[in-house]
């Protein structure tokens, strides 16, 4: 892929994620999406950059904060919005809502809203990949808070012990709901992980193409060695933990942090990058317009779609 094509693809992902989230913020007050939302605004580079380094066959696993992951792994946008609307055409017929999204067709296998509980599942997936000698890797996304759970360390141990093809992506926003990392952790994440013998790379860039390059190296390493790799990437959560609003007024963090991080906003960085490598304003606009249109159409369809019939409650429990 040419550099300009790659950067355009990255921008498309990042812009779509941002605008989809902004669309949700716009619609949410109408109370037509009856599902708590943990928005990905601020986190786009990490997700888009890493997913850009994965192939369609590679699997990803996520958390309750997975709108970005769904979009970056190219899940179906109609089914995404329909799920938020709780409609039958949603990815899980309205059963999952925002907190338990997935898109197995596109490699986003599962997510969980119980912190860290998805991590061992991804380790098992990596085991299956190795067992079946498949040519793919597994990436699991989780927050800084998830590393406090015992199961995180158990998963790390198992994946290193068994040399499994898994990419751990720790998305460190220094917060678990409202609690700062310094009030929760006696360790620093990359340092604490290293003794397991895993490759670790830590960065605080919000530049999507830099993260892509980092992730690409990591994924290559995994493919080559068959061993796990740990990425520790920082970002700033622009909004409240759950919901559509800013919450700097509550005093547990300060607006100055936002101002600083917003200076390196993923969408702005990538847009400037496109201009810098000679892509015209018109061409960028057409990428943006296409994304806007696709979001608008998916929302329209979701709004008009029917709910599941109530007997649907009893379906999908056992195979």
């Amino acid at each position, binding site marked *: 892929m040419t550099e300009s094509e790659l950067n355009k693809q990255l921008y498309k992902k990042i812009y779509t994620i941002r605008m989809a989230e902004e669309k949700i913020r716009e619609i949410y007050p109408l109370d037509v999406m009856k599902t708590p939302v943990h928005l990905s605004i601020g986190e786009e580079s990490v997700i888009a950059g890493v997913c850009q380094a994965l192939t369609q066959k590679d699997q990803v696993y996520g958390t309750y904060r997975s709108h970005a992951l769904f979009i970056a792994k190219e899940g179906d946008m109609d089914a995404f919005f329909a799920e938020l609307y*709780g409609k039958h055409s949603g990815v899980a017929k309205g059963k999952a809502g925002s907190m338990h999204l997935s898109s197995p067709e596109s490699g986003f296998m599962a997510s969980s*809203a119980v912190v*860290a509980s998805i991590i061992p599942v991804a380790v098992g997936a990596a085991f299956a990949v190795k067992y079946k000698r498949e040519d793919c890797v597994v990436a699991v996304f989780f927050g800084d808070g998830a590393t406090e759970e015992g199961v995180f360390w158990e998963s790390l141990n198992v994946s290193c012990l068994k040399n499994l093809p898994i990419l751990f992506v720790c998305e460190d926003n220094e917060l678990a709901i409202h609690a700062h990392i310094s009030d929760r952790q006696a360790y620093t994440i990359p340092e604490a992980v290293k003794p397991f013998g895993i490759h670790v790379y830590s960065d605080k860039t919000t530049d999507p193409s830099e993260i892509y390059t980092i992730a690409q190296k990591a994924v290559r390493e995994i493919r080559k060695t068959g061993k796990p790799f740990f990425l520790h990437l920082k970002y700033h959560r622009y909004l409240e933990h759950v919901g559509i609003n800013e919450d700097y007024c509550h005093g547990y963090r300060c607006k100055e942090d936002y101002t600083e991080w917003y200076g390196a906003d993923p969408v702005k960085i990538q847009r400037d990058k496109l201009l810098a490598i000679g892509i015209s304003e018109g061409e960028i606009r057409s990428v943006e317009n296409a994304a806007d249109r696709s979001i608008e159409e998916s929302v329209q369809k979701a709004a008009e779609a029917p709910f599941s019939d109530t007997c649907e409650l009893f379906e999908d429990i056992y195979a």
Partner: protein
Amino acid sequence: MITITYREAINQALVQEMERDPAVFVYGLDVADHKRIFGTTAGLVEKFGPGRCFITPLAEDCMTGFGLGAAINGLRPVHIHIRVDFMMLAMNQISNMLSSCRYMSGGKLKIPMVIRAIIGRGWGQACQHSKSMHSVFAHIPGVKVVLPTTPRDAKGLLVSAIRDNNPVIVLEHRWLYDISGEVPETDYTIPIGKADIVRKGKDITVIAVSWMNVEAVKAADILQQKQGIEVEIVDPRTICPLDEEAIISSVKKTGHCIIADYDWLFCGFSAEIAALVSEHCFQEIKSPVKRLGFAHTPCPTTRPLENKFYPNAVDIIRIIEDKLDLAPTDLSGEEFYSHENKFKGPF
């Protein structure tokens, strides 16, 4: 008597017990942030300092064992989970350690620990943020399980739980926080193991758990007005230990028993009550015991399915009509509870 909300009742119980006994401390995720567990831990860190009210890492299993260790050393921990679903990570400590530690010491150790957890329906909370689990906890010998419904019971039972020398799990339905009701102004307790007759009646008994008391009262009001039926509602309040006598005598009196549980039915608390009634009221019972509770599925997100998942007042009315051979009650114009239309009391 003063009128306060359920949220304030919990808060007052914590403040009062922390003032009374320096061994009491409160901890868990979110207990000291600006939201304060739906307001129930408000003011604690300011009043008692971070040594006695503190947040923890995300480490539910560890922090439960931590509480056990503190408790066998004479402290009185109150561990809080903002959803019972997160408490599932601590099932090892609860079922293997907390429940059995005294037994394994041959009665030498005491475990005065309280675990508070929030249960039940919110708004699109789905399968990992809305469980109840009281049947599972009550299945384990060595722990007590308490589900207060009114502000008076919430305060009185939490005080009893904190003063109890055994592990007590207190489960609070999140829709109850806004309910207001009268509580005594002076220090009081509600004994663990004593049911409350929420409403007296002669025609049929409804055993209701937690939020289902609100639904049952609504159903009873409607049936009283429109059908002249007197429903007796029994709130067990503590399901382990269980006030069997209160349940048995009510069912003997009315001859009909409905269990409105707030949990799955299969192998659950409702089955326990059905067995109890069958053992003790076989001569008096005039119709088979009927149970209602969660649909036997994980909880869905979308509203139409969520509505079908949870039991409500209309379900209770329909069952009573069926049992007592009543014509369908006209429910037009009745307002039922939903997230948007929460019951605010007084209860």
